[in-house]
């Protein structure tokens, strides 16, 4: 008896319609993971650095073997400019400069100064792994100097023995020169946005998307769709009305969710660095662009959802159709967290650019780095995507698909706009 019920349930629930999106998303996640790379492998790789040693003293002699052994040194000379150029050219992580009076200062019981010029490529979690390895190198250099101080100069200041060097850091990131911040500090600040903003966008898309798909499912389940379609209202108005209504519901739901979530996120915030102090602030125009990016992405997502919603037979099947939207939003979110747009492989870059939800997730970071073309191109693409989806949705509303599940062929793609004009 139980077996009979299990068999029936399995047949009801395990259908091609539920299986295909899962398989597709599983493949996409796999490909994304492969493209992004492996954290372990990246950590084991020697970081590519340049070294400028102007000291040539006892303590720089301790530092140099440690650095050359544990890193791939692609420049070892005396010119900072040349070193920077070489490190940039070789896709390196940092240029370490040991100034003339390095050893002398330590002998005089003052910490030796190391100048670090960070070449930051991206603000994602994966992008900062190499800089973390360089930080480890500096710690190793400190340990080496500390050992020497303890062995040979037992009368040294304990504070100096524990911290024999200080750093003067400059980070180069996307054409900006940010003095006084290491790439990991900057990365931490930007990654807090990398987490919060994608989650806000993801929640908004999922909440609003679920609303519009469910609305289509309920129209069918409650048998209200036929009546709606015979009322004197243009199909395009029905589609737009559903999108705007769902956007409002989604925004309210996401806002409620985010009130709680922002409190949760605040508890993890450890840095009190103000990015505006380093010239990384946004103006009114930037916030306007972020708003436009978010709005167009929301419309694009909802237009896509309404197309998906036309496949819903009822409320239950509508819930299944939310899955592809959720997966796309999650993929966008994870990629934004782990990698910068500029540091992901070209194929993956094309893939994420095609996801409308990705653009508002990266908008703030891109604008902070004055990457206006990326944001504006994203908005333009998303707007075109929205229009295409609305036209497709109106076309479906004008066909038999909504009521019968099949399309009566009447007009070619060239006549897509006809539906919008006539109805």
């Amino acid at each position, binding site marked *: 008896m139980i077996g009979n019920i299990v068999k029936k349930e399995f047949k009801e629930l395990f259908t091609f319609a539920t299986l295909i999106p899962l398989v597709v998303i599983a493949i996409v996640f796999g490909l994304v993971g492969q493209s992004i790379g492996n954290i372990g492998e990246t950590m084991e790789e020697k970081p590519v650095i340049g070294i400028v040693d102007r000291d040539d003293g006892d303590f720089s002699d301790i530092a140099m073997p440690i650095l050359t052994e544990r890193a791939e040194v692609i420049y070892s000379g005396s010119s900072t400019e040349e070193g920077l150029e070489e490190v940039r050219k070789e896709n390196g992580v940092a240029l370490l400069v040991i100034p003339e009076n390095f050893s002398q200062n330590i002998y005089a019981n003052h910490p030796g100064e190391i100048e670090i010029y960070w070449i930051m490529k991206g603000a994602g979690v994966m992008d900062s792994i190499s800089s973390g390895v360089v930080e480890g190198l500096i710690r190793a250099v400190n340990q080496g100097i500390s050992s020497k101080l303890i062995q040979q100069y037992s009368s040294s200041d304990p504070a100096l023995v524990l911290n024999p060097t200080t750093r003067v850091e400059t980070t180069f990131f996307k054409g900006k020169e940010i003095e006084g911040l290491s790439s990991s500090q900057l990365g931490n600040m930007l990654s807090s946005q990398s987490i919060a903003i994608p989650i806000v966008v993801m929640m908004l898309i999922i909440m609003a998307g679920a609303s519009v798909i469910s609305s289509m499912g309920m129209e069918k389940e409650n048998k209200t769709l036929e*009546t709606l379609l015979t*009322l004197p209202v243009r199909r395009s108005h029905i589609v737009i009305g559903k999108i705007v209504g769902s956007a409002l519901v989604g925004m309210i739901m996401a806002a409620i969710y985010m009130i709680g979530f922002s409190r949760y996120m605040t508890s993890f915030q450890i840095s009190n660095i103000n990015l505006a102090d380093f010239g990384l602030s946004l103006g009114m125009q930037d916030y306007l662009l972020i708003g436009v990016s978010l709005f167009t992405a929301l419309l694009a997502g909802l237009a896509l959802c309404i197309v998906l919603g036309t496949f819903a037979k009822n409320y239950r099947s509508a819930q299944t159709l939310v899955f592809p939207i959720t997966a796309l939003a999650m993929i966008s979110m994870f990629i934004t967290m782990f990698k910068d747009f500029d540091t992901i492989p070209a194929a993956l870059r094309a893939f994420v650019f095609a996801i409308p939800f990705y653009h508002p997730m990266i908008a703030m970071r891109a604008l902070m780095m004055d990457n206006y073309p990326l944001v504006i191109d994203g908005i333009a693409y998303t707007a075109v995507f929205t229009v295409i989806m609305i036209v497709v949705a109106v076309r479906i509303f004008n066909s038999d698909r909504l009521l019968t599940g099949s399309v009566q062929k009447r007009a070619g793609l060239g006549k897509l706009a006809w539906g919008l004009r006539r109805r």
Partner: protein
Amino acid sequence: MKAVEVRELVKDYGNFRAIKGISFEVNEGEVFGLIGPNGAGKTTALRVIATLLQITSGSVAVFGYELPKEAGEVRKIISYLPEEAGAYKNLTGKEYLNFIAKFFDDGEKFQDMVRRGLEIANLGERINDKVDTYSKGMTRRLLVGRALMINPRLAILDEPTSGLDVVNAQEVRRIINSSVEAGVAVLLSSHNMLEVELLCHRIALINDGVIVASGTVEELKKEYDAGNIEEAFVKAIK
């Protein structure tokens, strides 16, 4: 002017031909019935005329407006009541009538429409309750009120008394009759032969996508030498 003119209408669902070239006309102020068993093509024909489905071949005109070219104009003058229609469950009955009436007029006529809808639905104080709490009969009366409150020139009613008890069914028929007296043309489908005899001025008997006979109830009974329309239908499809 004819309320409905259907000429050689064919409707395919993929490879399945649901309607195989039917023709009929509905006059102004007339109740015309499409009568046949389940799957005969009644609902498909009504859905085509109600602008919901595309035409495979043939032509359909409603008060001179050709489909699908002038579907927008047709929607302004028709009202369609599907067999298994529902209303939005989170709205009250009155909110639902307001919602529908706004598509037709938002001025003085809007108030008249809603008033008329309330009269037809005749749900008393329950009109202010959510549709979710209504019985099947109450929902159907609300939907009949919705369909007829706008004073359509053509009401397309698919099994208007489907699932209703005798009392509610009689009430719905009374409402339809009074609308017809006010000048509304009605095209309805039914497999309830008693209802057809009570309501329709003329009928078309449809079977397997083909109209097998048409005329007044009396004409068909005489033509097939039958005591009632059910008997006439059985003889017609043999």
